[in-house]
């Protein structure tokens, strides 16, 4: 989830978030169903263009995608070993296209827009009475907000280890990380209440 919002004013930035979120969803479906290689290749090329259009410098965009590419390469390799080659190629194209498009959408959609779209999407389900659409939107927004914060905390705590000459170990990182983020979360919850953001519950 490193691929967070990138400032800019590209066509994708201006495109309605609803269209983006829906087409991401639909693309996932279509790519999943089809295994027609020429079609997949064309779609993949289109997603390359979409991703390039966001306007990130080449170096940054490559850095963002590197870990994902490695995974895709590996999954394709496994598929290649146990399946016919064209299936492996289809997997490679499919995953690459999806990844690029997901990266392009997350780079051009703000958290606020995501929250609004999800709230609208979930609204019909609300009738069952299981979930509250506003809460689902809020929860998703909070996840997107917390991820970079957790990473920043992780860096702060490993620096604290370094400053005291201590080795970084999973438990000595995780314990303070979780306690500190829990405390932050409590403060965020208090702020949400103080700002009257979840007034539908009262």
């Amino acid at each position, binding site marked *: *989830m490193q691929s967070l919002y990138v400032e800019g004013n590209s066509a994708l930035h201006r495109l309605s978030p609803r269209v983006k979120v829906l087409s*991401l969803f639909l693309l996932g479906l279509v790519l999943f169903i089809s295994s027609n290689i020429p079609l997949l290749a064309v779609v993949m090329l289109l997603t390359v263009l979409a991703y390039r259009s966001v306007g990130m410098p080449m170096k940054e965009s490559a850095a963002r995608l590197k870990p994902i590419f490695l995974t895709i390469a590996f999954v394709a390799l496994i598929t290649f070993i146990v399946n016919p080659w064209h299936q492996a190629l289809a997997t490679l194209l499919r995953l690459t296209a*999806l990844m690029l498009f997901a990266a392009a*959408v997350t780079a051009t959609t703000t958290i606020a827009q995501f929250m609004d779209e999800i709230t609208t999407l979930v609204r019909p389900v609300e009738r069952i009475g299981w979930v509250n659409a506003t809460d689902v939107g809020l929860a998703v927004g909070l996840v997107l907000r917390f991820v970079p914060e957790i*990473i920043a905390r992780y860096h702060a705590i490993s620096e604290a280890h370094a400053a005291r000459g201590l080795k970084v170990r999973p438990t000595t990182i995780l314990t303070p990380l979780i306690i500190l983020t829990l405390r932050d979360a409590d403060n965020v919850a208090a702020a949400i209440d103080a700002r009257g953001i*979840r007034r539908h519950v009262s």
Partner: protein
Amino acid sequence: MSTRDLVLTALFAAIIVALGLLPPIYVGIVAVPITAQSLGVMMAGVVLGAKRGSIAVLIVIALVAMNLPVLSGGRGGMTALVAPTSGFLYGWVVAAFVTGFLSERLVNAGQSSLVQTVSFFLAAVIGGIFVLYPFGIVFAAIVADVTLQKAFLGSLFYIPGDVIKAFVAALVGRAVMVGYPLLPVRA
């Protein structure tokens, strides 16, 4: 759901997502990676309890369904929802629930630190291995079209790592109980 519970579940969903930034490790020719995210699932159960822990996992699955690259190695979307890995993914909901359920019953503040740690460990092993693996194995066998036996043998690869993760989750659970007690308000 109180605002606090909502925020805490979102926090643990975010912790699971963040653990996905650690690169997944693929062993052998099984298309299911060893991932740090299952540690996040165990911790969600241990720290938040059954209800909030399993909702945290559901939020992650909702993000996957939106095609967001939140699983280890940047995966998401249909290709992650109907794949050899997906049984584990759905099983995570139950795993977090069972881990949380057992933690809530087994652990209380009056016990010695050893008892607490061992109980959290057991809860994480039962939820995160015994309950989780059947989901993963059956689903993998169906999707990848291999025999159950083969899928079962393949899943043995994960045991050492998952036992270590259960242990880490237990230490974290115990430390949180000492340093930031949430258990009294669990339920």
